[in-house]
C-alpha cells in the first residue's frame, strides 16, 4: 500500500514480515522454551538436552518428584480450582445483576456508579489486596472481641478472604462483558415474549438470559482464568494451606530456585488456559 515501486515494495514487505516474526519470537519464544524444557531429563531445567522424559510430571523418586506426585502442589491445584469456581459463580451473578442495573435502570449518579465499577480493575492489585486485608482485619478483630475469639475467623486470611478479594475485581470484568452484550439486546424481544403470553420474569428467563448466554459463558471462562492465575491480590489474602493457590506456591518455590517440575506446571497451565481461552474466543465469536 505504501509504495508502488516493486523493488521497494518487496523491501518493505521483508521489513514488515521480519518485524512481525521478531515480535512473535518475543511473545511466544520464552513460553515455547519453557514448554520444551518440561520434557528434558536435565535436572537444571536448562539445556543441554539429556533425553525425553515425563519424570517432571509423574515420578516419585527422592530426587525427582513429578508434579502429579507432589502432594502440596496437587492440593494447591485443588484449592485454585475451588477458589476459581466460587469466584466465577459469584462474579457471574454480580455481572448479570450489574448489567441490568447499568443498561435497564435510570437513576441519579448512574455515570458515577459506572466509573466506580471500573475502579477495582484500575487500582493496582497490591493496593486492592492490602486495603481489603486491613478492612477485614479490623472487622474480624471487632467480631472477635464482640462475640468471642474465632467469630471473625472467616475474615482472616484464608479461603473466603481470597474469594472475596478476587471477586472484587473479577466481577468488574464479568460486568463489562455482560453489559456489552445486554446493550445489544433489542428490548422489543422481551416485549414480544410478553405479548405472546409470558410474564416479565418468564420473558427475562426465556429470552433475555438466553440471549446473554454466550457472553455469560465467555465471561465465566475469563473469570475462571483471572481467578486461577491471580497473584497480586491473592498474595495478601491467602493464609494457611487451604488458601494456597497455584500462583502462590509457585512464587514461593521460585524464590528458592528453579526445578523442571515448575516447567511441567507451566505446561499444564499453558495447555489448560489455551483450551479455555480458545473456548472463550469461540463464544465471543458466536456473540455476533
Amino acid at each position, binding site marked *: 500500500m505504501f509504495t508502488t515501486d516493486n523493488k521497494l515494495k518487496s523491501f518493505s514487505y521483508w521489513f514488515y514480515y521480519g518485524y512481525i516474526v521478531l515480535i512473535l519470537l518475543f511473545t511466544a519464544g520464552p513460553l515455547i522454551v519453557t514448554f520444551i524444557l518440561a520434557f528434558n531429563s536435565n535436572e537444571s531445567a536448562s539445556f543441554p538436552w539429556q533425553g525425553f522424559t515425563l519424570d517432571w510430571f509423574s515420578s516419585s523418586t527422592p530426587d525427582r518428584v513429578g508434579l502429579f506426585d507432589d502432594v502440596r502442589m496437587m492440593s494447591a491445584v485443588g484449592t485454585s480450582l475451588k477458589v476459581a469456581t466460587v469466584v466465577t459463580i459469584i462474579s457471574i451473578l454480580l455481572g448479570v445483576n450489574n448489567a441490568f442495573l447499568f443498561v435497564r435502570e435510570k437513576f441519579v449518579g448512574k455515570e458515577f456508579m459506572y466509573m466506580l465499577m471500573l475502579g477495582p480493575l484500575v487500582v493496582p492489585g497490591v493496593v486492592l489486596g492490602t486495603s481489603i486485608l486491613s478492612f477485614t482485619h479490623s472487622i474480624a478483630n471487632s467480631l472477635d472481641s464482640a462475640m468471642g475469639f474465632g467469630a471473625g475467623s472467616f475474615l482472616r486470611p484464608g479461603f473466603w478472604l481470597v474469594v472475596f478479594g478476587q471477586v472484587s475485581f473479577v466481577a468488574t470484568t464479568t460486568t463489562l462483558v455482560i453489559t456489552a452484550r445486554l446493550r445489544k439486546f433489542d428490548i*422489543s424481544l422481551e416485549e414480544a415474549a410478553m405479548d405472546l403470553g409470558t410474564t416479565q420474569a418468564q420473558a427475562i428467563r426465556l429470552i433475555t438470559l438466553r440471549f446473554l448466554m454466550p457472553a455469560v459463558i465467555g465471561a465465566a471462562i475469563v473469570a475462571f482464568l483471572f481467578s486461577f492465575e491471580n497473584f497480586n491480590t491473592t498474595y495478601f489474602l491467602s493464609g494457611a494451606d487451604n488458601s494456597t493457590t497455584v500462583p502462590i506456591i509457585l512464587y514461593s518455590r521460585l524464590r528458592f530456585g528453579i526445578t523442571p517440575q515448575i516447567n511441567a506446571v507451566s505446561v499444564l497451565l499453558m495447555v489448560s488456559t489455551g483450551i479455555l481461552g480458545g473456548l472463550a474466543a469461540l463464544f465471543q465469536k458466536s456473540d455476533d
Partner: protein
Amino acid sequence: MTQEIDVSVVNLTKRWGDFTAVNNVSFDVPKGSFFSVLGPSASGKSTVLRMIAGFEPPTAGEMYIGGKRINGLPANKRPCNLVFQRLALFPMMNVIDNVTFGLRRRGGLSKTEMEKMANDVLARVDLKGLNERKINQISGGQQQRVAIARSLILDPTVLLLDEPLSALDLKLRQEMKLELKRLQARMGTTFMYITHDQTIALAMSDTIAVINFGKLEQVAPPDVLYREPATHFVASFVGENNRWDNGKVVKIVNDTTCQVDFGGILSNARMGEKLSPGDVIDLFIRPEMILLKPGVSKPGSTGEIKEINFDGSHSLIVVTLTESKVPLEINVKLQHTEETPEVSVGDTVTLSWGRSLRPAANAFLHIDRPSDGEE
C-alpha cells in the same frame, strides 16, 4: 345494520410530564377490517398501539377489545398480538420455535399438535420448508411472515402491526403490501396497522385514522380521506396537493361548495369546514384532477409551462398562471394516454378543474405553514 366492534378506544390520553403524546383519542375498529392509524413520526400513533398492546399504561381513557375492558390487564393477558416494527423475532430460536413460542406458554397442547398448528399457519403465510432455519438465515420478507405467523397462531381478536414493512427495501415493501392485504382478507382477522407511509395506508386499509400531534384528525375510508379531507392537516398530509395560501371566499355556492378568489382567479372548491364569505382560506388542488389544454380557451385559466418533469406513465408539469394578479404556480399531473396533447416548455395552456362530481379542490381556513405534515 350494526357492525361488530373489535377494538374500541374512548378518550384515550397519554402524558409524560408536560408532554401530551396522545390527546383524547376515540375510535372504533370494526370486526374483520383492515384499520390503519396514519400519522407523521412522533405523532403519537405508536403510543396508541403500545397502550392497546399493554406496554404503556394510559393516563386517561378506556380501551376495549371484543367488548371487554382491557385497562390494567398485563400485555400477556390481552387478546391481541403485536407484530413489532423490527419484528423482534427471537434470534436464538429457529422458525418453528418462534412460531410455537406463544402456544408453549399457554400449554395444554402436545408437541405434535403444536407443530401441526404451526405448519398450518406457516402455510397460510406461504412459508414452507423453512422450519428448522435460524432467523438470520431467512430473508427479510420471510422474517416478516414468520413474525405474522407467530402472532396469528394465537388467534388474536386483533393483530396489531407497528410499521413492520418499514424495515424492508422498496420493492419488497410493495410486494408485501399487497400480500398483507390479501392475507388479511383471507384470514378475516382484524388488523390494526400503524404507519407513517400514506401509500401503504391508502392501498391496504378499509378505514384510516389520521393522527397528528396526538390528536385524531379524521377517521374515514381511504377514498373519502383522499377526496374529502376533514381537516387542513389531512389535506396537506394525504396525497399530493397544490397548496395556495391566503385566498378569499367570494360566495357560498351550495351546502358543500364555495367560490374562492386568488388574485382574480376564481375557483370552485369543496368546503372542508364551515366557511362564510370573506374568510381567508388555503386551497388544496389535486394535480391529477386538473384538465390541461394547449392554447387559450374558455372556460379556464391560461398559463405558461415553466417546467416539464417526465415520469414514465405521466408528466408533472409546472404552470405559471398568467391571468393572476399575484404570482401563482400550479403542478399538473398529466397522464400519458393516446389523447394526451404534446406540450413543451414555454407553451401557453389553459387549465380548468372542479367541474366533475369528484372534488378537485378543498378549502380550509388559513393556517401558517409550520403545522404542515411531512409532505
